[in-house]
């Protein structure tokens, strides 16, 4: 139980950290509005910035003449999943959702769950290499279409089937059709809903975008081609009127991981406290179990067994029990909990019970065995042999 709790806490912290720290391309730089470094949802920059960047900064990666520059809008909106589950035609799901979603003043106010919406252009597919379309197609602008990440269902608290291609979701009081699904394994992007940039800007009545994400070609010292983060920072410095703050994408998500630091500490502290509580219970039991064997231990000493050897055997006894429990817990953790989707604060990630967490769990089990046996064992060996032999 204790080891299982440690695995859960470790998997939670590990999963959250990894999801945030691996989100973000290695050569990606995100430019956002000054003062919004902690949260891109608050950022606003002029819609013309991507064009200025592409023209002014040498070293941005291109392919077939298309620059790896992705203008994006990030906003959290409540999303409701339509009750009409079946869709025989493309439009029927939308119509059913529209019928359900239309509200009059007498109907109870719809609630919905908040999910991260990202307005993108097709350049996003170039910049965010971890994203791959697994089903359907890219949404078209003006057609009220979206594509959803693999973990979006977890965030929305619905079944996967409710977000299949062809289903409808209610955003901003209007039905939008799911036309595609994407995956981005191990990143928080999987919990997002993507739609055309222009559509999201219209829906949120924005004239500004949240950020620009671009991919740099690695700098080659010999040829002088490519660019580094410093080049983007220098560009931002030469255009103070744009009020841009550049950051590597990994650094941005790393800061987000730090933001959740207190939550992780709470998770570890809780698991630790439960482990200590379990230890006290175990110590009690061990004291009683060993106390009833004082005479037996005295007998062993009298026939020549050294105390150290007896202590060692008691530790082995205790550790065997806890190790067995630890192994069972690890098996449960690996086969049942690893990858379990956890919804947390408008995002989702999978519990990550990797070798580090398993090692920690096993070590905890072993440590409990050792620590749980040592004090009772030492106490039971303290009486002299004659006293021990006379014990009841």
């Amino acid at each position, binding site marked *: 139980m204790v080891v299982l709790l440690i695995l859960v806490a470790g998997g939670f912290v590990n999963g959250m950290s990894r999801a945030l720290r691996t989100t973000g391309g290695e050569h990606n730089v995100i430019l956002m509005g000054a003062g919004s470094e902690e*949260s891109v949802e608050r950022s606003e920059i002029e819609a013309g910035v991507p064009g200025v960047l592409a023209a002014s900064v040498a070293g941005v990666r291109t392919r077939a003449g298309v620059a790896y520059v992705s203008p994006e809008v990030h906003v959290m909106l409540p999303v409701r999943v339509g009750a009409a589950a079946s869709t025989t035609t493309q439009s029927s799901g939308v119509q059913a959702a529209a019928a359900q979603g239309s509200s009059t003043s007498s109907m109870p106010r719809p609630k919905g769950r908040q999910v991260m919406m990202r307005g993108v252009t097709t350049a996003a597919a170039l910049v965010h290499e971890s994203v791959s379309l697994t089903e359907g197609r890219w949404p078209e602008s003006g057609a009220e279409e979206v594509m959803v990440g693999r973990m979006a269902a977890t965030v929305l608290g619905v079944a996967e089937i409710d977000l299949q291609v062809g289903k409808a979701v209610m955003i901003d009081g209007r039905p939008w059709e799911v036309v595609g699904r994407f995956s981005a394994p191990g990143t928080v992007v999987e919990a997002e809903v993507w739609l055309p940039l222009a559509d999201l800007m219209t829906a949120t009545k924005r004239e500004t975008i949240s950020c620009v994400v671009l991919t740099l070609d690695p700098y080659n010292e010999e040829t002088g081609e490519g660019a580094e983060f410093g080049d983007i920072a220098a560009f931002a410095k030469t255009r103070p009127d744009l009020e841009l703050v550049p950051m590597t994408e990994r650094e941005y998500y790393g800061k987000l991981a730090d933001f959740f630091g207190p939550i992780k500490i709470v998770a570890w502290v809780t698991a630790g406290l439960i482990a200590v509580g379990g230890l006290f219970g175990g110590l009690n039991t061990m004291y009683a179990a060993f106390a009833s064997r004082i005479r037996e231990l005295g007998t062993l000493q009298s026939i020549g067994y050294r105390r150290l050897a007896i202590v060692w055997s008691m530790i082995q006894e205790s550790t065997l029990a806890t190790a067995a429990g630890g192994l069972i817990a690890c098996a449960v953790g690996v086969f049942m909990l690893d990858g379990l989707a956890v919804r947390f604060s408008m995002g989702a990630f999978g519990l990550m019970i990797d070798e580090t967490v398993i090692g920690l769990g096993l070590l905890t089990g072993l440590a409990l065995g050792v620590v749980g046996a040592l004090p009772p064992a030492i106490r039971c060996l303290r009486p002299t042999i004659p006293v021990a032999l006379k014990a009841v």
Partner: protein
Amino acid sequence: MIAPKFVPVVVKQLWRHRVRSVLTLSGVAIAMFLFIAVQTLQEGVRRSTQTAAGDTRLVVYRENRFCPAASRLPQFYVDRIEKIPGVVSAVPVKIVVNNCRASLDVVTFRGVPREELVGPRGWATKWQLIAGSVAEWEKRSDSALVGETLAARRGFQVGQSFDASGITVTVAGIIRSPEAQDQNVAYVHLDFLQQAAGKGGGLGSVTQFTVRVDDPAKMEQVAEAIDAEFRTEADPTMTSPEKAFVAQAGADIVEIVKFTQWLGWGCLAAVLALVANAIVLSVQDRIKEHAVLQTLGFRSGLIARLIVSEGMLIGALGGAIGTGIALSVVHFGNFSLSQEGLSIGVSASWSVLVWGLIISAGVGIVAGLVPGWRAGRREIASCFRAV
């Protein structure tokens, strides 16, 4: 349960096996610490999200938005809201928060008009100034009145400058408020925040309106009237009682806290197991002793009650220690969970303390019931024969 003259007997039983008692007490204390921590969370959520009968505050927000950065309402709406029957006052509020996600360390700025804060019926009249003054706040455009919880968490002092979300302010005062939301925010001048927040709407744009109604019974009616007024506007509104709004905007936190209820039950089960384990071990050691007591004339019922009292004492003592530590940590830790610029304070109260003691003692009693009953039913002769 037992006559007072037997209390020293019970205490002596615990004292005889000090190591066992200490271990059990420690385990119970830890479990109760977690249980009480969970209870304070639940209490915080209840206070922040359950509308009380006397509540009269509504929050007017942009429809379908919860993150303050996404909610932009024209400031001129305030005149039309104030004309709606039942509305006593409407205050435009600009909110800037460093991150909309749920966490323990979030800084929220609330920009309000000067006259709404310092007027004769202004918000400041309900606050207690722990340090600094409202007059200082009025002197500078970039000054802030910081809630007690936020100030304690970040170590802010009067006169100190700090920055968050790209906005730099100077602390003019530290306030204590009966409203949970006020404890964890920094109140600044509305126009300062509108300008400092830069592209986020700028002057003339606010995040929400805080509306006070004259009759709590008419809150829903007034809310619907406000939403009907702006239904066809470019920025329609969503109006709800303040606590209901917190419940919806902070749904993630509410869900997390609901989930911790299971942790709380688990802790109680752990207390039960720990105390029961200790009692069983203790009873096993004293089989002969109980037989002797019965021989001397102690009734089986009394022996059973002595054992149950032992359980109650361990539970109560461990519970007292755990509850005391939990409440101290909560009191001095100044924790609060924030999301979307709203915070749910985690605070200690006397009722939680009392309940904690009662529950831990109760669990101790339950843990001792079965061992006590079994010990009382044993035959004297078979007890003497036991090894």
